């Protein structure tokens, strides 16, 4: 149980009311409530808050203010600015928990002043909040974005190292994959990248399984033990098809009622360099619109442009695998409003 809620700069005991600077104890205010000083284990990114409430027990108006904070990331407030006799005021500090490292102390100093016979008096106090980050490991990066071609492997590097000392050997750090049902991350390969005289570190190469096209969001969590609270690293993967159109869309433009044509070429995006014989499907079908492929060239034609419309040419390989998709835009050159 933590009793040391207020440490007075003038040497009084923690938890006792502050003493005036140059007067015998006047006890101008009294602590009436406080939230815990030690918050225990806190996940990274979570707000760390401590609040002290005092009552003005004097017959003077008090003016509390914050005089110092231990970190620029810390928000500290003293409210209200002026406290009438019998009224209450609050000293509050708010920080954000870091995800890894040793136990953290956040503190702020405050000054409460008042006037007696036009002489300014003041006392200083300190408010502290303490927590332990949820992991003792440093993981880099803490946020990942990766790109890959559908059907091709994706490897994502990560680094894990011990946060505080060099004592932990890489073997002790060696992470073990633990994938639940439905998860598709492949076993992780590890490499000792410990540098001479540097902290122990291992590099973890996450190898992701084949992914369908589009954006996928997920996460990897890292802890020092299976039951330990984890540090979550969000991962976003953009998976593209192995062939792309150039230009990016077939744009068929003409006056309404006129025919229109467009042509695109397919180019490889991934490791394959030869386009197998492919079939085309236009989705949804548009009356009068046809699409043909010759080599890597796709030609589209519409017999009569009726107005704006859009479709996609889906290109499939011999085994039905999705090779590319080509947006098709039909848009009149002069459109009636």
């Amino acid at each position, binding site marked *: 149980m933590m009793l040391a809620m207020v440490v007075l700069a003038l040497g009084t005991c923690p938890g006792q009311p502050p003493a005036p600077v140059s007067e015998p104890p006047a006890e101008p205010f009294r602590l009436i409530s406080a939230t815990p000083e030690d918050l225990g284990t806190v996940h990274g990114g979570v707000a760390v808050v401590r609040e002290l409430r005092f009552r003005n027990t004097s017959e003077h108006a008090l003016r509390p203010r914050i005089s110092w904070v231990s970190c620029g990331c810390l928000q500290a407030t003293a409210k209200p600015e002026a406290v009438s006799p019998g009224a209450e005021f609050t000293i509050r500090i708010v920080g954000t928990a870091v995800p890894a490292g040793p136990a953290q102390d956040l503190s702020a100093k405050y000054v409460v002043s008042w006037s007696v016979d036009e002489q300014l008096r003041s006392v200083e106090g300190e408010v502290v909040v303490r927590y332990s980050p949820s992991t003792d490991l440093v993981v880099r990066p803490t946020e990942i974005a990766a790109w890959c071609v559908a059907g091709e492997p994706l490897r994502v590097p990560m680094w894990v190292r011990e946060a505080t000392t060099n004592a932990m050997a890489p073997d002790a750090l060696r*992470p073990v994959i*633990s994938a639940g049902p439905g998860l598709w991350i492949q076993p992780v390969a590890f490499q000792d990248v410990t540098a001479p005289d540097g902290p122990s570190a291992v590099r973890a190469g996450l190898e992701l399984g084949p992914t369908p096209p589009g954006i996928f969001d*997920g996460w990897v969590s890292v802890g020092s033990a299976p039951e330990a609270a984890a540090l979550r690293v969000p991962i976003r993967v953009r998976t593209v098809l192995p062939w792309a159109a150039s230009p990016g869309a077939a*744009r068929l433009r003409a006056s309404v009622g006129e025919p229109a044509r467009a042509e695109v070429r397919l180019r490889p995006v991934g490791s394959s360099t030869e386009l197998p014989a492919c079939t085309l499907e236009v989705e949804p079908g548009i009356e009068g619109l046809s699409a043909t492929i010759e080599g890597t060239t796709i030609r589209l034609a519409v017999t009569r442009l009726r107005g704006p419309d859009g479709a996609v040419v889906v290109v499939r390989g011999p085994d039905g695998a999705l090779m590319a998709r080509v947006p098709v835009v*039909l848009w009149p050159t002069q459109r009636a409003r």
Partner: protein
Amino acid sequence: MAVLVCSMAYGGQPPTAAPTGGPELRALVAAIEGYSADTAAVEWRQRTYLPPCQLAHRPTWSLLESSGRYMDERWNWGLDIRHRRSGPEDDWNVTFKEEVSFGNGGVRACADLDLDEGMLTEPTNFHVWGPTLWGCLGRLTDLQATRRGRSLPEVIAAASSREYLEPTASEPWPGIRARDAAPISAGALDLEVRVDPDHGFCPRVIRLVRLGTGQVGEETRVVDVFEAERGVWLPRIAIVHGYEALERVPELPPERLQDFERANSLEGLPLDEFGVGEALRGQMREIFEGGWKPGSIVIGTVYLPIGAGRPDQEIVCPQVLFIESATLTPRTPLRRFADRMLSDTRMYDGLTGVWTTWREMRPGAMRLLGEPQEAR
């Protein structure tokens, strides 16, 4: 023993399904997807200007930054920036350092060229802050994961619904409103995007509107475009607004109203250099003037450009972006950013926790960044 647990989730409808909805909506969805594919990698030079603000000693529009940049859909990026403000007041020279940074979705190398010191670590959001050409292409609308932002077609595909927007008198381009398209921690945003059919379906308006209140959060108005490659047009001048909500219509002092007037005068912007004619100047004035009128959200609540409605704060919006040059086919862009860093630059390896030099670090760093041929 460290333990890794991994989970991947389907993050929204991928843009692989056939377009649905009415024919006009289908056309625009396909057009935006095609445009996004054409602009999947861009290298450019830009300048950004801040509005006049007497509180910040800026009597005219003032240069905020000048930079060379690269971004692509693989989340590779590069930034060579000078923090050089052109404020005429002597006491207003904020910073004059030059910084180079580049990376991908998981690793960043950066160096302060004045200090000859840098580090290899994970990316920050610095390269996606403020107006950029990449943002004008609609690739930075993910306010929850800005630097891992999705493309416009990806955002539109993941929205809960999509509707076609007819051209209007003030915004004469067709568009799409994608509902609940940009999730943020405090709620959700509609995306409104209008594209220009006569200029390769280049985005002209990108607007994020808060669901429920209708407050515009961010707004990019592209006022001029240029043809970067045959058929592919890019924004050349854009006005980027960021708005904040206020509890009431503010009572603003004369100095603040004078700031608005000075902004409307366009003084300080490089309009002659960019050959901006009277018609375009008129459009720009109209957009600025419109911004100073408090937008109504609900009774008793308004919104104004960030800083404008608080007399004790600096006006930081709108900002004007000028694109000096751009290419859609950059060659080895990351290597050129790497070359800007001197070999003897002292580097901290934040991945393994050791100090080294850029000479020693470069081969491994470039391998991490997908340039394996650099291993030497």
